[in-house]
């Protein structure tokens, strides 16, 4: 014990944006040696930032999720962007130029010593680079390879691309999650598709590794991010296939529970979420509002006494609930309702999360120190294992940080060759100067 489960598993990747990188993180967190292969000549948009070398004005205006430490891009912006750094812990990075012959050769030598390779470029990209599965399996028959483009390896849209939120739209999710009374331009983007595809990719890798233990053979896995995203909305798929009903959005409401919503609380832009599923929870809700008698003038009303009555009168109910929540802080409402067995919780923002008592008690945020960014709290592991205590081991990886290890120790090139490849721009820690 004490060893991490995936120690000894080497995973090489060629990933962009988030879906692939999330799969890397999930495997790296549990001990896999994850090697990101990155290019110095090409800047993959929305991966290590939105721009290679953003201006100070751009940095100041950047979305919080793409923030830089102290809103300064620094000497090497690609090592400092939150967009990348939050998932980049526990990984290794090396550089190669896969558009040149030498780069492809280095890559193939790395694949020969890897257990797993995955990539989430548009379908066809790795084939055009000459490093598709048919080539790689000749080099390493035990290789597990996952390709996870937006639309999969086959079908009329196989070469189509898009970011997570375009796939959300395509797969029906955007239509299901807007304000019921406003058009979808008000919905704002979400990228659940990235999270779903990342977790499924890591799972596919584990299944293929388990299979390989028995057969000694690797395999290719075709994962379409859109198909995973659809799976996560199966209830709406089934309502269409079984009942012919193409659901629209019900916002924060529920198909049977009421009240179910987010309600304003004391303070500026503070909210609490409440769901009352059944009569027992409604009784708890009533007790929370009036601990002594168990009902107030309105909670005791006949029209709210049954599930159907509450559901049919939810416009009125929502207003009454909010009259009560407005006078309290969101955490106060949570404690009052949870005390009575009613599901409730604050709408926590990216600042308040760091003060949440549960996350604090369980140490969900871990302090990490990255040389070019300093010391910060980072969201930690997704689960705990009793016999395998585990924490973030390495901070967000810098571009090319492990070039020596990967090129010399794994691939096995000589010092002279290393120096030559450095000179020729394959190996390095800086993006090419022409990338602005």
């Amino acid at each position, binding site marked *: 014990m004490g060893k991490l489960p995936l120690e000894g598993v080497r995973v090489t990747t060629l990933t962009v944006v988030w879906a692939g990188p999330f799969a890397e993180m999930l495997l790296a967190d549990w001990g896999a040696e994850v090697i990101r292969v990155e290019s110095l000549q090409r800047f993959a948009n929305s991966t290590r930032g939105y721009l290679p070398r953003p201006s100070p004005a751009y940095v100041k205006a950047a979305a919080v999720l793409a923030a830089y430490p102290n809103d300064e891009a620094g000497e090497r912006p690609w090592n400092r962007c939150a967009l990348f750094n939050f998932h980049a812990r526990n990984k290794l990075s090396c550089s190669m130029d896969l558009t040149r012959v030498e780069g492809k050769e280095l890559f193939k030598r790395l694949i020969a010593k890897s257990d797993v390779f995955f990539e989430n470029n548009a379908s066809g990209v790795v084939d055009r680079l000459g490093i598709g599965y048919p080539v790689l399996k000749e080099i390493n028959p035990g290789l597990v390879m996952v390709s996870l483009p937006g639309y999969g390896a086959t079908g009329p849209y196989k070469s189509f691309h898009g970011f997570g939120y375009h796939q959300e739209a395509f797969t029906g999710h955007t239509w299901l999650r807007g304000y019921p009374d406003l058009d979808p331009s008000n919905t704002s983007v979400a990228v659940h598709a990235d999270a779903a595809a990342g977790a499924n990719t890591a799972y596919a890798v584990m299944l293929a590794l388990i299979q390989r233990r028995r057969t000694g053979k690797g395999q290719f896995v075709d994962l379409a991010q859109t198909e995973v995203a659809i799976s996560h909305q199966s209830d709406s798929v089934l309502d269409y296939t079984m009942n012919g009903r193409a659901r629209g959005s019900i916002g924060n409401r529920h198909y049977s529970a009421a009240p179910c919503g987010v309600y304003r609380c004391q303070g500026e832009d503070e909210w609490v979420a409440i769901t009352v599923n059944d009569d027992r929870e409604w009784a708890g809700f009533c007790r929370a509002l009036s601990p002594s008698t168990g009902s107030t003038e309105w909670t005791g009303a006949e029209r709210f006494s049954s599930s159907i009555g509450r559901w049919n009168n939810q416009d009125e109910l929502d207003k009454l609930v909010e009259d009560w929540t407005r006078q309290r802080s969101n955490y106060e409402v949570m404690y009052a309702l949870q005390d009575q067995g009613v599901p409730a919780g604050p709408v926590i*923002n990216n600042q308040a999360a760091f003060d949440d008592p549960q996350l604090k008690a369980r140490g969900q945020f871990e302090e990490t120190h990255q040389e070019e960014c300093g010391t910060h709290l980072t969201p930690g592991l997704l689960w705990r294992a009793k016999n395998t205590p585990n924490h973030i081991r390495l901070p967000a990886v810098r571009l090319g940080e492990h070039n020596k290890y990967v090129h010399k120790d794994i691939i096995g090139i000589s010092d002279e060759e290393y120096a030559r490849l450095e000179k020729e721009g394959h190996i390095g820690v800086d993006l090419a100067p022409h990338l602005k």
Partner: protein
Amino acid sequence: MFEQALSGVKVIDLTHHISGPYCTKMLADYGAEVVKVERPGCGDGARNMGPFMKDGPHPEKSGMFAYLNTNKQGITLDLKSQTGKAILLRLIESADMLVENFSPRVMPSLGLTYERLKEINPRLVMASISNFGQTGPYRDFKASELVLNAMGTEMYSRGISTREPLKLGGNAVQFQAGAVAALATTIAYWQALEGGYGDHLDISIFETQISTIDLRGGSLLGYQYSGRVATRKEPGTNRGYPNDVYMCSDGYAQIGHHALEFFPRVLKMLGHPEELSDPAMGTEAGQMDDDLKGIFEAYFIPWCLERTKLEIFLLGQAANLPVGPINTMEDVTKDPHFEAREFFVDVEHPAMGTVRMPGAPFRMGDNPWKLRWPAPLLGQHNEEVLGPLGYAKEDLVKLREAGVI
């Protein structure tokens, strides 16, 4: 013999509702032998969750249950009875995994702690999925899909500033927790195979949200970096163009991305119209200029209104521009791409008839996702599962009369 990745892997499934069953579905669909244990009489609460076949509420006609429990064997056991517990322990002796998503106080109250279970099966992987985790001040708190969205931090910045924050559609958070749990369970199983010892996994849905990728991970670290709070967007804010939802002749499409490199592709899609020939539009300053945006939209909005969302999707893709038509589930289930890939599968269910549902989330070359049988009717496999433990038919009758099964 091992025709699927998890063929021969034995899973005891003490889950209900969504997150736990989705986890064990992912195991079962790739070959694991999953025995789902339900409460005698009523079974998994998901049997009462809509949508129902032909809108007819019935415990054997829930579409959700039918989707979440494919390829599982179903038995009923009263875990509060001594006999029920003894049967469960016998099943656990030879199991590889046990997955449960009771409230954290339940398993200890039944005497089914990991400490006890590992004594009878040291290689057992036990996965406990809960709303907030097995420890901490919220351990016993209740949650709902909405509450989990709210506490997961991303919801706060979803929607517009003048309105309330918006949750994700359906039950996305619980599905995601189920997928993460399936991964966690197989990683621990790998450890049992390689290292010879099992583990107890504590999977908090709350934490699978806090530490996930999407807009939240970056925003949490972004707060640490900049001290800024991620808020909901102001309606009408210019975030570059086109980078929004646009109305089409038959609905809406999500068009563009805020990075500069995409503007030339927009012009390519539009066929380089003269009206949009000002080179300033493709610059960082021009993309932030409201007058230029006005000129752009005066051309672009009518252009979109004259075309269907699918036409714009195809034209955009031909120009390498990210576009996503805002599809309904009708569009999705009829889309030619998913038809060509045969993504949706028809399941023959004894009480529901043919049910069309999403198929393989990913396709493995050598050991496919396979639909072996539909979700179990309540207690359907009592005889098959308990028979090999030495319970004859007459014993099952007695167990049934005693309310154990």
